[in-house]
């Protein structure tokens, strides 16, 4: 039996009908057609489905959809939409530093980086590594990814994009 929930998705109040056994990932991809968050392993190990829940990075494949009632969810789509240049500074940095190869891990990596920088705008390399330790990149572009997050931290004195939180 479907239940009605309401929450904030990428800055907008939304409502949806969800089955009790759905995960947030399924709700995002199948109802809202936001396919940035990917199902990699589906077991919380790979981080490709990472989104922000009330500012914190979480794996949406293990999050029961009903738990987002009244909460704030950000996906990678929300970052780009809200930026005048079309890309969030973290995304811009990923492009500039060549931190993207196949792109499958990228939305999750960016959301983990976003959660880190929101909380800690000047992270050390160790802190960056910890923040993305739950995001697997099988093209193994970790060096560039870490460099991109560092660049985004250094370049983003404005603390990211207005209204993106």
């Amino acid at each position: 039996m479907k239940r009605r929930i309401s929450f904030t998705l990428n800055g907008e109040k939304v409502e949806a009908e969800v089955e009790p056994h759905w995960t947030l990932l399924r709700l995002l991809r199948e109802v809202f057609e936001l396919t940035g968050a990917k199902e990699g392993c589906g077991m919380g190990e790979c981080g490709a489905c990472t989104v922000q829940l009330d500012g914190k990075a979480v794996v949406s494949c293990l999050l029961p959809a009903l738990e987002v009632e009244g909460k704030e969810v950000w996906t990678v789509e929300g970052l780009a939409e809200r930026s005048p240049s079309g890309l969030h500074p973290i995304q811009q940095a990923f492009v500039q530093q060549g931190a993207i190869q196949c792109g499958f891990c990228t939305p999750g990596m960016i959301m983990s980086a976003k959660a880190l920088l929101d909380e800690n705008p000047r992270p050390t390399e160790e802190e960056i590594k910890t923040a993305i330790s739950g995001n697997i990149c099988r093209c193994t572009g970790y060096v560039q990814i870490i460099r991109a997050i560092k660049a985004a931290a250094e370049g983003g004195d404005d603390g990211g994009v207005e209204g993106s939180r």
Partner: protein
Amino acid sequence: MVKYDYLKARSVKEAIGWLKEYGSRAMLIAGGTDVMVGIKQGKFAPEVLISLRGIEELSYIRPEDQRLKIGALTTHRQLERSELIRERFGALADAVQNLGSVQIRNVATIGGNICNAAPSADTAPPLLIHEAEVTMEGPEGRRSMALEGFFLGPGKTALGPEEVLLEFSLPWPPDGAASAYWKHSRRQAMDLPILGVAMYLEAELKEAGPLGEAFAQGAPLEELLEALDRSEIYCKEVRLALGVAAPTPMRAKGAEAVLKGKRLSTEGLLEMGQVASEEAQPRDTVRGAAWYRREIIRVLPKRLALFCLKRITGRKG
């Protein structure tokens, strides 16, 4: 995927009421990082999930009556961030730091880690050496017991079918005590331990100069042990707990007796390790063979004692 109903409890009483109503068809879920994986793997097939996540009053870390009280729904991330835990309950801080990933730690709870009762639960050995008590509530009211008696087997605990775990309560350690946890694994993040070892050590520093200097110089393990032998440090109290060494997380009490009251030395710590490896009942698993686990149990107390001593001497300095 299994279909189930999902009920969000607003209070412990409501959760207990639903447990009574649905019986074995229901299962409790907190952060969900084990339960959801278990459902996806076909290990669990509940008809009803009862979510405890909305019960905010079960999420806290607070000192009270010479004890530290931790609510069962406290996340690993909250524990990781706690200054109190880092300062006085080092083993627990060590354990949560490398558990899963940031995404997992943001939602996974300490109550869930313990109730899941995996032999590899990272928070179990630290809670055991800190002699944690657990409190639970059921239809008949509340009861408390030592965590040591809580684990009955892999995935099995003393929690009744209609009970909800509320709190962990740890005695406040005296000054001069420290604890540490070491997860022996191939990778620090996103990996289960091949073995987990936690030690609580209360030391009397008669003459700690050589060791203090060696720590200050960042000396390697062998040199630290030599410096320990040249120092005069006595073990007033020691507790050792092991994960993935038996069907449940365990205290190695025979090994503790070897060291208690004695002067700390490389030889004494090796003897402690030897006894602990005999007390353990490890199995051959995909992560490691039993003989290998015994071998690392034998050598790890040395390292753990040094971690504890570094914390103790660092504090004094």
